[in-house]
């Protein structure tokens, strides 16, 4: 029983990170129809910003804030410089643009910093576990679950209550008509990118807290997972991206925990097979609506 709850907490924590990343991907996709390959590099950027901030003796809290701010600003800058000029071009052009942005960032990280991992020491108080109703729960897991929950709640309030939030949901459904409401197209797209950057930044911090180091390709694997989560949840659905992130993490964590040792090398393949089976049963995704499939 105890191990079950332990794994449950692990899955929630990992799922939160996937969910934040997937939500960022889905936000940009829903507004622009673009899968942003450079999304993972925003995470990596957070890592390097934290690395340098700590190196400069700024301390962990400030490093976290700076790391997240960097990812947010970089996402907005990316939209302004790279994606806005090709916004009206076809999907393939935008995809190639995002690949180019991603490649350029990799090169910069490798050549200006290093191809080797850089350590980001996790403060000692974060390493331990706390007692929650008789169960030892890792401080990092607890913080990561709390941060994810707070961020998801804040975002859902923003999307439901604020004019800009409603406009973003409207733009996902019908961009030209959203402009007919007097909503500035650039503001909607910039907000989508800014929020995706913020989410990638927070996910980056959570990821780093688990791994303790940053390297040029840090963002690749988690964003690949996030992409699977987006498709699993239903491409274009924000709620779907979040659900997809958690479902994927639960599959991964429980396979890792309960698969016989001999099977462990195949756990990624088994995970993907399960995802494919889910998609065969529900091609529109877990949450996506059939008519929303583009």
């Amino acid at each position, binding site marked *: 029983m105890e191990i079950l709850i332990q794994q449950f907490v692990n899955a929630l924590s990992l799922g939160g990170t996937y969910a934040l990343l997937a939500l960022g991907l889905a936000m940009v996709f829903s507004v622009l129809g673009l899968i942003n390959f450079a999304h993972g590099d925003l995470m990596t950027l957070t890592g390097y910003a934290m690395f340098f901030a700590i190196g400069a003796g700024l301390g962990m809290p400030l490093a976290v804030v700076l790391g997240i701010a960097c990812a947010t600003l970089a996402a907005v800058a990316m939209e302004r410089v790279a994606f806005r000029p090709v916004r009206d071009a076809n999907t393939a052009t935008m995809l190639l643009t995002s690949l180019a942005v991603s490649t350029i960032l990799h090169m910069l990280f490798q050549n200006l910093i290093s191809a080797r991992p850089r350590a980001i020491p996790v403060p000692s108080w974060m390493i331990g576990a706390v007692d929650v109703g008789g169960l030892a729960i890792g401080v990092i897991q607890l913080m990561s679950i709390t941060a994810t929950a707070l961020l998801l709640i804040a975002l859902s309030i923003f999307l439901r209550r604020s*004019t800009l939030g*409603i*406009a973003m*949901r*409207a733009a996902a*459904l*019908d961009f*030209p*008509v*959203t*402009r*007919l*409401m*007097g*909503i*500035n*197209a650039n503001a909607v797209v910039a907000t989508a990118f800014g929020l995706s950057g913020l989410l990638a930044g927070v996910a980056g911090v959570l990821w780093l807290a688990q791994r303790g180091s940053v390297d040029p390709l840090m963002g690749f694997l988690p964003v690949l997972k996030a992409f699977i989560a987006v498709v699993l949840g239903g491409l274009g659905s924000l709620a779907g991206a979040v659900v997809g992130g958690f479902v994927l993490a639960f599959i991964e964590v429980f396979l890792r925990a309960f698969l016989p040792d001999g099977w462990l090398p195949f756990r990624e393949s088994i995970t993907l097979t399960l995802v494919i089976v889910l998609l065969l049963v529900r091609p529109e995704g877990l949450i996506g609506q059939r008519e929303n499939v583009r």
Partner: protein
Amino acid sequence: MNNGPEHLLDVAGLEVRYGAIEAIRGAGLEVCKGEIVALLGANGAGKSSFLNAIMGLVPLTSGRVLLDGEDIAGEAPEAIVRRGMTLCPEGRRVFANLTVRENLAIGGATRRRAGDAATILTGMLDRFPVLAERHDQMAGTLSGGEQQMLAIARAMMSAPRIVLLDEPSLGLAPRIVDTIFEMIAALQHHGATILLVEQNVDLALDIADRGYVLASGRVALAGPASELLASGDVERAYMGRD
């Protein structure tokens, strides 16, 4: 070039092209404050292209678009809405996965002061009581007629100086169409200025003050609604496609 304050909207020499297709070939019209002007024409005559071009939704090749004397040709749709002209698009295009309330809220997004939007909203819900009943329902679950009312109310939420309506009768049962047209006439009584695109010639000319007939991207006929209705020229202009 001063056209006087009486022309709220003044379009001249409008040309719209989609690649090799010339959809609008030098069309123009005027709408005075407080008028309903009908823009008629057969399928593919270019009515939607005309509206979309003056709203900035599709690029115009050339032409003059004066809103209250200021040239707005080529501006972005959101800028034009903020200047006081809005479009209720063909096919209603309500935000299906947003509630009626949210659809109306975003329609009033340009009313900066919350008080303004609330006053306008109260007015709209009085005029379209069915929307008040369906306030928390997803717009996509409304009937076609209700969706059309929502689309019109949503457009009116920006308190426009002039509203362009693109085929509000499209795909609706005759009884519903009558209701919608009564509502459009009522909007005029409350001071709205309307450019109404329609295929339903008789109904449109019945509530309009003046009318234009578009054929193959040109104005083939123009005049007071009563004269157009009586003359039978409209049908001839409809046929006269080249």
